């Protein structure tokens, strides 16, 4: 903690000449924008190819790269002190914990005795879909 002068009454605007925040060159912003647009095209292209269940994961990876670019450069996160980093990442960790909690529960609920009924139920729903589709 740098020592701030203690007198509470002085230290108004006119006394301050320091630099506020970090200045990022124009070219960097432009490069990031172009990268973002390219990645949008990539994500659309990736969606046409059918990776099966992996589609969602691929889409999320690309989206996360774009999000990282926006956060670090556009939002100056790269030049912030560690506390801001902590509170930028904390919600992502909590979201991961919530998802982990949900996905340790729902997929493991099948009760062996009732697998037959569950399968039958899913088949019925599929039939309804095909008629609609």
């Amino acid at each position, binding site marked *: 903690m740098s020592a*701030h002068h203690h007198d*509470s009454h002085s*230290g*108004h*605007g*006119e006394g*301050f000449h*320091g*630099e*506020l*925040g970090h*200045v990022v060159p*124009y070219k960097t*912003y*432009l490069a990031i*924008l172009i990268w*973002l*647009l390219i990645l*949008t095209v990539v*994500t*659309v292209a*990736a*969606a046409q190819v059918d990776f099966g*269940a992996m*589609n*969602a994961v691929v*889409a*999320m990876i*690309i*989206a996360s790269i*774009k*999000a990282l670019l*926006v*956060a670090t*450069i*556009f*939002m100056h996160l790269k030049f*912030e*002190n560690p*506390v*801001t980093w902590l*509170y*930028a990442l*904390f*919600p*992502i960790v*909590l*979201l991961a914990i*919530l*998802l982990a909690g*949900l*996905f340790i529960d*729902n*997929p493991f609920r099948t009760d062996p005795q009732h697998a037959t009924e569950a399968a039958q139920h899913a088949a019925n*729903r*599929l039939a*309804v*879909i095909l008629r*609609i*589709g």
Partner: protein
Amino acid sequence: MSHGLFRTEWVAGEPPDIHHMDVPTAYDAAKLGMWLFLATEILLFGGLFAAYALFHWAYPTEFHHASKELNWKIGAFNTCVLLISSFYAALSVDAAQHNNNKKVVRYLLITLGCGLIFLVVKYFEWTGKASHGLFPGTSGEHGAFNSPEFNHSYRMFFGLYYCMTGLHALHVIIGMAILAWAANLARKGRFSKRYYTPVEVGALYWHLVDLIWIYLFPLLYLVG
């Protein structure tokens, strides 16, 4: 000597006189405060993403099928609009850091314009869906949305779709209001490289809105 609640009088380019903080602390505090608020927004949308992830896993085929109803070209266009608006929001902060209030106003206006385009495109998309009977309370060739016969995973996909895009659109409107407030101050030449917190805070909020859409677009339109 507590101030009046709203600081009306100010000196162009000079940070306001905050009685218990000096200028760099006030700037850092404002940014940390906004980052914390963005953390709560991420968690607010996080709850929706968790629900979506769960039902995407539970009904993969139905969700994929229902997402075919959405026009991904409009979604892609909206994504680009928001990315460009995010670019100009970042430039407005850069302009403020170079004491150029006129550029700040221009860039903010471009950002607000992009936001408006986004909302208009979203409005037409929603009304389009409603006419196909995919909006709660309506009926179309798929049958009435709220009737039991209506295929329930369609209802769930579109229920989630409207919740997510609706909440996101609300945040776009809030973001535009903040940026408009900052643009108005910039028009009066309020900012300089010693004081531009409103622009910085407004831009941070706008980037978050763009960030959320970056995740919404593939989840809803492409993967389904």
